[in-house]
């Protein structure tokens, strides 16, 4: 499993890339949700099972941001076992490296032909994919700051990003 940290608008984010031979154990809180921080899947597939009870949760697939699935909790606390039937990638925004607190996130999941709106003053961390904004090409992972007014993006390749606020 490879971990690559980036800075995203003052927040430490870690891009995690897992092979099919990897697995990972993650602690759950009393509410059955992961406590370590936000995570956003951008490639592959993750099977998720509660170690203690065997409960199988919904597979995590590209576009899954846990902040947008707060009811997808396990029925109990315990530990999640993550396994990867294919090469998988996600962005993790952990509490442990962001002592000042985590940002509010909104996912951006678009494909060629889409023209997503990017409001002025947006801060977007493009994790994967390629966008063209105001004639400038952005290839993830990178930061995009919109400061010249509301605009739209042309999607050159399937893109997964996060609005930070």
């Amino acid at each position, binding site marked *: 499993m490879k971990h690559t*940290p*980036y*800075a995203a608008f003052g927040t430490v984010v870690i891009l995690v890339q897992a092979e099919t031979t990897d697995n990972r154990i993650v602690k759950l809180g009393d509410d059955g949700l992961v406590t370590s921080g936000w995570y956003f899947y951008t490639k592959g597939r993750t099977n998720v099972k509660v170690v203690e009870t065997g409960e199988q949760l919904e597979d995590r697939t590209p576009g899954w941001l846990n902040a947008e699935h707060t009811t997808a909790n396990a029925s109990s606390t315990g530990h999640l076992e993550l396994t990867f039937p294919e090469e998988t990638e996600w962005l993790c925004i*952990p509490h442990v490296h962001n002592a000042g607190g985590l940002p509010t996130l909104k996912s951006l999941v678009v494909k060629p032909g889409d023209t997503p709106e990017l409001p002025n003053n947006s801060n977007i961390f493009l994790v994967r994919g390629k966008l063209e904004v105001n004639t*400038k090409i*952005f290839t993830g992972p990178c930061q995009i*700051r919109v400061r010249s007014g509301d605009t739209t993006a042309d999607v050159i390749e399937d893109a997964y990003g996060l609005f930070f606020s």
Partner: protein
Amino acid sequence: MPDITDYKITAFDQTNGRLEIKFENLENKIYLDLHPDQSGLYPEGDKLDTMIRGVFPKSHIERKEKIASGIANSAAIAALVQPDDISPTPQSLNDFIDPDQFFNIKLVVAIQRTLAEMSGGTV
């Protein structure tokens, strides 16, 4: 006992009277300084062949083969190891960034911030 399957002389440094020899079943080359005999000549023929075969590192090859096949009390020796408290010198960026370990997140982020900003920007 390993056998010398074949060898060839791959170089001869005439300035220093030194042979470079490549044994077929040995990864590294062997260097052999030749000594002139009582007639002032280098050994040749069988005498040279015997000399070359004599420098084949049998014990080194035997040892490698034995270790490769497993040593019964290897675990007992490994149990004697007392790791140094000092962290090893990181060899690459990935050595820094296992979140389960202590690492210098500020340094890594500084590096990656630069990389991200180079490929990103303001529009």
